């Protein structure tokens, strides 16, 4: 069942790379068909998903390389299933939104399919080493995607991305090696690994390795410096994949391997994590306000929104974990829409400078529909009720408040700041008088609008009916919450 | 201590002194010809030590091969290429010399200490074998058969290698003319630096 999600894109990538397919547009069609197939399969899996089962479903197991404890074991649960769907959707969007006349299309599309397979694999892997393989598998495709099809400083951005991510993979691998060895299991199977019986210091060291490793990927504030460069320099579709999908691997890993494998130690590091998350939120919002480049602004806003996930994961209550997963999905959708629209604005208007752009709302000469959708996306990102962002953030805040009241309050204030920079963004770009010199932007074609429509509809729908997202997550969260009552950590805090 | 032992010790002392003096001479003399001749002295002293150890065949082989062949070859090489070259004295050369001397003395001291301090696992008193030749032959055809045979391959290869390095090359142009490839692809050494390449052809030119 699940292997389909790996095999189809990988075989598709091989076909795209090696078989002559003619021009770029046909390649894109073919790749889009494959992505559609994958997504359709995910939808089918969603319908088959047993909502009463909190464990792993559709499991597959194949003993692969015994001596190093590597097995090909896949499985999904309420944590990975929504992210899998997000991955499928965003890959489709990324392919569809790629420019038709892109250079070296065969390499490009095969890399995107490989990225899809890699992320799916990492989300499904039930073996720590298998996870690392898929996690590192992302490295080279993304390096090339940024390095070849990126903007002006792409070489610098790509190398920075590569080094940071390689270090991240290394730390995760080191932590897993330590985990598997110290917990005296002969293999890396997720289910057989447990941290019970490990000393507190050992657990803390391992958890720290994991936190730093995944923290680079998310990225958290002191480790984020690769991120604005990578997001800004990459093409819109790469940025969608980077921000919407790849960064989720970091938070996914944090919850899956940090929270779930270290339930005892987690509550010790949780206050620190919440603090870092809060700092990320505030820093992201502040930095976004200061930006003059709309893409960079969106990139920094992403740091802020990933911070919520961290706070929620740190709290570890049933509701907050639910919120964390929901926020992952909602952030992926909204960020993808933002990057996509910013990409269209850049393509049509030829600039991303906040000072140059204005009056895009002009119904005749501007980009009215794009601006309208941009406003919508901004609202979603700022957490306006009725959109998916609100639903997710609300659950996050509600779930974490009892545990970390002060960080959550700060986060709520910071989400107000989110509104500030989106107002700045929208006010400068969409409203005002359209300059006559730069007038008459090329029209946005209908085909170019489709990805934005799809994303917008999804955001709206999930915002109005969040239950459709939450029902798949719910069974999972009941099983993992390290802190079901939500008061434990707070009590520990006050006792100290 | 009987007479035989006394003679042995005395001759060992003489041989050892000779060998060390000659070896120092090899290293210290400025003129390379002196060094070469003194090297012969070292080899002869070593063969003397072999005789003291009852290894008459090895001693003879030592003189034949090292003095007769290797050393003579070295002398030939020196005399054929005897180009007088005046080397500029390097400033501060004595520092290097002193450092070398220090290292050598230190190594010598270390090895001497090692020789004296180590409890050597000596076999029972050795009686002189009737004929070392037979003994060596037995070894060659029993437990050292494989190295002995492998040595023949080694020598074959060394010979072939020596011939290859020494032989004169065939003239490239004939070969190139007879083949259908353009001249430059045949005779260009692939990774030679630019300045060494004769400027033929245009496909390989670079600034």
């Amino acid at each position, binding site marked *: 069942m699940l292997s389909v999600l790996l095999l189809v894109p990988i075989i598709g990538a091989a076909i795209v790379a090696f078989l002559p397919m003619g021009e770029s547009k046909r390649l894109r069609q073919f790749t889009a068909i494959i992505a559609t197939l994958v997504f359709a399969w995910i939808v089918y899996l969603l319908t088959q998903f047993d909502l009463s089962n909190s464990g792993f479903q559709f499991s597959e197991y194949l003993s692969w*390389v015994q*001596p*190093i404890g*590597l097995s090909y074991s896949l499985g999904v649960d309420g944590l990975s299933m929504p992210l899998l769907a997000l991955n499928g959707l965003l890959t489709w969007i990324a392919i569809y939104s790629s420019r038709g006349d892109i250079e070296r299309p065969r*390499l490009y599309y095969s890399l995107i399919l490989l990225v899809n397979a890699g992320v799916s694999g990492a989300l499904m892997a039930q073996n720590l080493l298998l996870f690392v*393989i898929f996690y*590192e*598998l992302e*490295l*080279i495709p993304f390096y*090339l995607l940024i*390095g*070849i099809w990126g903007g002006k400083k792409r*070489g610098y951005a790509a*190398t920075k991305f590569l*080094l940071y991510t*390689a*270090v991240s993979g*290394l730390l995760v*691998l*080191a932590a897993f*090696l330590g985990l598997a*060895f110290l917990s005296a299991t002969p293999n890396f199977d997720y289910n057989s690994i447990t941290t019970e019986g490990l000393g507190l*210091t*050992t657990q803390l*060291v391992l958890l720290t390795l994991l936190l730093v490793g995944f923290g680079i990927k998310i990225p958290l504030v002191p480790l984020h410096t690769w991120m604005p460069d990578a997001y800004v320099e990459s093409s819109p579709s790469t940025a969608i994949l980077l921000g919407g999908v790849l960064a989720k691997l970091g938070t996914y890993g944090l919850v899956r391997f940090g929270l779930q494998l270290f339930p005892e130690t987690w509550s010790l590091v949780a206050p620190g994590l919440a603090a870092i998350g809060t700092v990320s939120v505030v820093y992201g919002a502040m930095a976004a306000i200061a930006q003059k480049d709309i893409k960079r602004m969106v990139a920094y806003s992403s740091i802020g929104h990933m911070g919520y996930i961290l706070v929620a994961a740190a709290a570890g209550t049933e509701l907050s974990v639910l919120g964390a997963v929901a926020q992952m999905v909602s952030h992926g959708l909204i960020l993808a829409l933002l990057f996509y629209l910013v990409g269209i604005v850049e393509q049509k208007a030829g600039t991303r400078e906040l000072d140059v752009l204005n009056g895009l709302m002009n119904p005749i000469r501007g980009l009215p529909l794009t601006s309208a959708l941009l406003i919508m996306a901004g609202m979603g990102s700022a957490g306006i009720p009725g959109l998916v962002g609100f639903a997710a953030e609300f659950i996050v805040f509600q779930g974490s408040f009892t545990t970390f009241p002060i960080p959550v309050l700060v986060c709520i204030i910071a989400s107000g700041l989110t509104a500030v920079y989106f107002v700045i963004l929208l006010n400068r770009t969409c409203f005002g008088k359209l300059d006559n010199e730069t007038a008459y932007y090329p029209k946005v074609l209908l085909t170019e609008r489709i990805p934005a429509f799809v994303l917008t509809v999804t955001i709206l729908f999930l915002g109005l009916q969040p239950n459709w997202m939450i029902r798949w997550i719910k069974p999972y969260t009941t099983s993992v919450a390290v802190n079901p009552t939500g008061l434990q950590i707070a009590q520990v805090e006050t006792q100290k | 201590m009987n007479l035989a032992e006394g003679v042995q010790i005395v001759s060992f002392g003489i041989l050892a002194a000779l060998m060390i003096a000659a070896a120092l001479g090899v290293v210290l003399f400025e003129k390379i010809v002196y060094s070469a001749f003194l090297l012969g002295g070292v080899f002869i002293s070593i063969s003397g030590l072999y005789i003291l150890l009852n290894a008459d065949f090895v001693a003879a082989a030592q003189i034949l091969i090292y003095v007769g062949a290797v050393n003579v070859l070295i002398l030939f090489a020196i005399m054929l290429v005897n180009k007088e070259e005046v080397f500029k004295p390097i400033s501060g050369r004595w520092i290097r010399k002193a450092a070398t001397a220090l290292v050598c003395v230190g190594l010598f001291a*270390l*090895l001497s200490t*090692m020789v004296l301090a*180590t409890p*050597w*696992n000596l*076999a029972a008193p050795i009686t002189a074998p009737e004929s070392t030749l037979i003994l060596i032959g037995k*070894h060659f055809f*029993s*437990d*050292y*058969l494989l*190295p002995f045979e*492998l040595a023949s*391959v*080694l020598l074959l*290869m*060394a010979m*072939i*290698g020596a011939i*290859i*390095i020494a032989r004169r*090359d065939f003239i*490239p142009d004939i070969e190139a003319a007879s083949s259908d490839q353009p001249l430059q*692809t*045949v*005779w*260009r*050494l*692939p*990774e*030679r630096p630019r300045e060494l390449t004769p400027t033929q052809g245009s*496909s*390989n030119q670079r600034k």
Partner: protein
Amino acid sequence: MDFSSNIATQLNAGAILPEGIVVVTILLVLICDLIVGKSSARWLPYVAIAGLLASVAALWLKWDATESLAFLQGFNGDDLSIAFRGIVALSATVTILMSVRYVEQSGTSLAEFIAILLAATLGGMFLSGANDLVMIFVALETLSISSYLLTGYTKRDPRSNEAALKYLLIGAASSAIFLYGVSLLYGLSGGQTNLDAIATALANGDGGESLGLAIALVFAIAGISFKISAVPFHQWTPDVYEGSPTPVVAFLSVGSKAAGFALAIRLLVTAFGAVSEEWHFIFTALAILSMILGNVVALAQTSMKRMLAYSSIGQAGFVMIGFIAGTDAGYSSMIFYLLIYLFMNLGAFTCVILFSLQTGTDQISDYSGLYQKDPLLTLALSICLLSLGGIPPFAGFFGKIYLFWSGWQAGLYGLVLLGLVTSVVSIYYYIRVVKMMVVKEPQEMSETVENYPEVRWSLPGMRPLQVGIVVSLVATTLAGILSNPLFTFANNSVINSPVLQSAKLTQPIAKAGISETSDRPIVQ
């Protein structure tokens, strides 16, 4: 020495059948070249390849032979040696594939090149199984002298001459040091040359803890480290690699190195079993230095061959982790890694050869924009380099994981962490080449690549090159994913070798020593 009639059974000469095939191939190559003349160059390489493959097949037949000791215990044909002999023979096979065109284009004769290469292979194979000090030394010298000859083979190239001279001088010195150390061993054991006998004599006598043994150990390790070019015995490597013909470099970096590791395992584990704590310590230092220096200096290289030279030093450091671990998993991870290293490194060298044949340069900057002119070369070189850097899902990743995993199990936390860090460094310089080839825009293409002639596979000698590239490409890509048989093979070769199993008895002591000496104690 009894010369009774049962000597034939004692000889057990069948154990060296694979080597015998190689010897016959050498003679065949030489004689055919003598009789037929120049025109034989068209098919002689295939004779040699057939001979080497037959030798590998013969090795396969010898797998798990009941009686592994041969030639009155002078040679040990156990599974461990079979694994290493197979690696050496295979590396020679691939080297011949890549050298046909190269040697022809450099205007030297092919038959002698192949003969000398086969002799080097023979030396390496014998070295992997040698169980006797004399045998070890003669095999070592066969390998070394053939390597010197190969290094200076393109004698009209001054850099090749320089490389050969450097290699010869340093190599001779290291051989002398090795011989000195080994002769001390002979003395300490009371006149034994057989490794097992030496081990017993040292264990029974009181020479076990002496200064003499320590010096013998240091000298022997110096000789071995020269062969595997471990820092600080690596100084010859970059110059020799840069100057000598590229196929030779390929062989030196894989075949010669594998033989050196085989020697290290057998000599140190057997004869120096009494001082295993000490040599574990020395090798830990060598591994640390090799990993750091090899990988860091490789960052600064501009020539492809020099970069690969330094990277091979770093790779040797990784392999040493498995050796220091000293467990079953450790040794088999070495074998596994060397097997994979064979394909990825030789693949990279084959690509470098193809590029230099086409353009006459090996500067990294000259590779820029290559993807437009030669996609196959770009793909193969990228994958081989990424695999060397340890990027999944290529074979190198699995090899490294196995090394690190076994090292970690043996408690070498510091070494493994250092290995992880330095492999990230190595990713950086490997990716630099990939970036040059793949990422550069068409307008950034180097002039060399602009003039890149179309590859004509139909030219004589190009077909083998193509086969070499494709084989190593496929092996590098698939050997990781389908690595289970290789793992089993490597494991069995260790488990079935009594040499390593008997050495286990001394392991607990050694391990205790290691966890103290490793720079990062267990976190509890």
